[in-house]
């Protein structure tokens, strides 16, 4: 990858990576740090990565860095700790997308990440599997369970009766 392609990767995917990390962590400073670290890492091996694969590489690297940060903060909530009872609606006046994002914050980190990659970036199960290191069956399970949780949240928020 050339310097020009690297800069293009910053301009083209910077917002996407940031959005993914920020919505996963809900912490703009940490998200900024993680994205910067990711691009610093990319710069160190810029000659070894093809531009065609750089988006996937960036998401993978940023995801792994985020997981490290979450583990360090002991904020990782495993799927086994998932508690559907926490999905209580706070208000029903917000629009659907806003409610969905609120519901998303209550999901375990793994579910949240795969849903973000699926909805924001339109990645396939296989691509999400490559980024997160989960196998495809796990990715599908996390996405389906996440969707159910989101729908239940909306139901409790009186969006659907």
């Amino acid at each position, binding site marked *: 990858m050339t*310097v020009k392609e690297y800069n293009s990767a910053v301009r083209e995917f910077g*917002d996407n990576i940031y*959005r993914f990390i920020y919505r996963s962590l809900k912490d703009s400073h940490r998200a900024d740090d993680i994205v910067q670290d990711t691009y610093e890492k990319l710069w160190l091996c810029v000659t070894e990565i093809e531009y065609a694969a750089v988006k996937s590489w960036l998401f993978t690297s940023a995801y792994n860095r985020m997981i490290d940060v979450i583990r360090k903060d002991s904020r990782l909530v495993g799927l086994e700790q998932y508690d559907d009872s926490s999905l209580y609606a706070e208000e029903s006046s917000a629009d659907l997308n806003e409610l*969905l994002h609120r519901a998303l914050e209550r999901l375990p980190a793994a579910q949240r990440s795969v849903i973000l990659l699926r909805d*924001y970036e339109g990645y396939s199960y296989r691509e999400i599997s490559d980024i997160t290191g989960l196998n495809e069956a796990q990715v599908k399970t996390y996405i*389906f369970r996440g969707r*159910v949780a989101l*729908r239940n949240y909306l139901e409790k928020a009186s969006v659907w009766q």
Partner: protein
Amino acid sequence: MTDNTDFPRLTPSDDRLPSPEKLFRKPEDLTDEQFDLLAAARAEDALAGDSLKEFETMLESFPAKRVRAESFRKVRLTPPDDRWEGKEKMLRKSPMAVTVRRTVLITLAAAAALSAMITLGPSIIRQKPSSTSLQIQGSAVVSEVLIPAASPVTVYRTEVAVEKSRGIPVIHERDPHTRTDVAAGPERVLPVTADHHPSVPVLMASADIHGLVPLKRADIVPVLTPEKESNWILRSISFLAGAITKEEKTVDGYMIANACVNGINDILGWDMELEEVKNKSGEQAKVSFSSSLLSFSAPMNKNQP
């Protein structure tokens, strides 16, 4: 058991599950959680083949469940317009751009240094301690006297040498006892400078000098000092500025140096400052330069060409 004794094998008996019907399930037997998971998979287009066909068949039988299953298609996040503010910081310069940038930097630095030298150079040179500091200042009379070759000439400082009341320089006679006789020989020309100020040196010549008489102050005609001119660089730049702007412009060193400093600040985002300090009469007195690395102040001698 088979008859083959070499390879004896068990033959399954005809035992049957008593009531397998009890274990059969119908689509309506799916729990809500199971149904939701299948509905979510359907909304993701992850169901295919027999699974999809069976699920669709069930939905046809239960319209209420179809409504619920369809609602999963709306559970989609729309990306918000989050922007990464640190994007510009991560952009990198190409090697060519870095080379050009360095070249421009060096050029600008050289220009700034040259401007600073134009502005501050004369002042710094003037500040250097040297024997010229003892030179006669503000000369009032410049003349020449003819001194015989054999006559000794002594120059010394003395306040006695000046007639303070009238401020007229006096040529003192030497001690008669040390007087040297005038010998025949070629005469020499000695410039004589006299001043009424008590601190300046006064030339003492031999008493044998004829024709030197005390002067009255009224007789002293100040020598006109030619007007100081700016140096050729400033004259050239002033000329160019006048030619371009069609106006009479006098460019001084401070203007050039200040323009260079401001230009470098604009281009590189630095925070250098060149400040002109004027005295009470509004004339340039000194120049102060300050930056994060270097700060100094130097007096300005605008008369020095």
